[in-house]
């Protein structure tokens, strides 16, 4: 299996994602520069966190027009597995590969801390290694992670079981008190209707080693490997 981590000029979690895939899971992983135009031969594409083009105007707005995004869109439209983490999630909504939008946290502050997440549906390539309702401990670090969508979109997301992660407490209870940023229905991550594109604000790549406080992020990468029928070799 081969994975690609897209590198926008302002990406800053690219190395962390690369490390998780290459060194924690032994997946052969390349960096792909934003000026490239092809994604042939990859089984997984990651849009990492960071500030793609400085995130001026709106997060992810300018990245949407970078040369590589044409290839990313084609790749996704042909069923390729695509995951956008934090800024990557913002790029996905700006590119309309996922519905809705991510706006300023309701506190107006950037928030970096460990958070509990309740797993929604698991019948997808991204969380099949988890149990529905399982609670994961994965950090967040964003200023604009407040997910919003109109009612019709929300109804569709719900009906199609596309809401994969919600901010919760340690026991999995989802409430306003456990909502760090004002996200609609505490949404932390969603997938598209075809279930090959996943966007999430939390950083699974920051939860891959016990020495950094949690290994729950591994479930996401493990799920992808399961789906592709690959065994980790690290």
């Amino acid at each position: 299996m081969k994975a690609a981590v897209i590198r926008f000029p302002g990406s800053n979690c690219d190395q962390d994602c690369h490390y998780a895939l290459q060194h924690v899971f032994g997946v052969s992983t390349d960096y792909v520069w934003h000026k490239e135009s092809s994604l042939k031969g990859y089984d997984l594409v990651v849009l990492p966190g960071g500030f793609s083009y400085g995130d001026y105007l709106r997060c992810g707005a300018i990245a949407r027009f970078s040369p590589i995004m044409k290839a990313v869109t084609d790749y996704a439209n042909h069923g390729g597995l695509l995951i956008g983490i934090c800024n990557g999630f913002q790029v996905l909504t700006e590119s309309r590969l996922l519905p809705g939008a991510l706006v300023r946290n309701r506190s107006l502050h950037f928030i970096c801390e460990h958070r509990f997440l309740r797993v929604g549906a698991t019948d997808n390539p991204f969380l099949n290694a988890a149990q529905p309702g399982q609670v994961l401990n994965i950090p967040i670090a964003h200023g604009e992670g407040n997910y919003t969508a109109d009612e019709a979109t929300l109804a569709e997301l719900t009906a199609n079981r596309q809401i994969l992660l919600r901010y919760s407490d340690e026991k999995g209870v989802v409430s306003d008190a456990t909502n760090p940023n004002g996200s609609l229905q505490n949404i932390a991550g969603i997938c598209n209707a075809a279930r090959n594109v996943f966007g999430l604000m939390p950083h699974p790549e920051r939860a891959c080693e016990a020495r950094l406080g949690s290994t729950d992020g591994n479930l996401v990468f493990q799920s992808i490997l399961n789906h592709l029928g690959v065994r980790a070799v690290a």
Partner: protein
Amino acid sequence: MKARVTVMPKKSVLDPQGVAVRNAIATHGFPQVQSVRIGKVMEIEIEGAGADAEARLHDICTDLLSNPVIEDYVLEIEA
């Protein structure tokens, strides 16, 4: 040619910044302020564009300068 684009959050979308500013104004001793909505304004200078400049600016407004999911824009050409 000069253009001015104003981008405002849609009425249906929560504007956390606007709410925060309203509260700040209220505690600043001006509770009569009912609501504040905050948007962006962009002043654009263009040189030597063709007759289709306005149409192209509209494209840029929907593609780049605003996100139609959450925002509306107004384009004014100032000659």
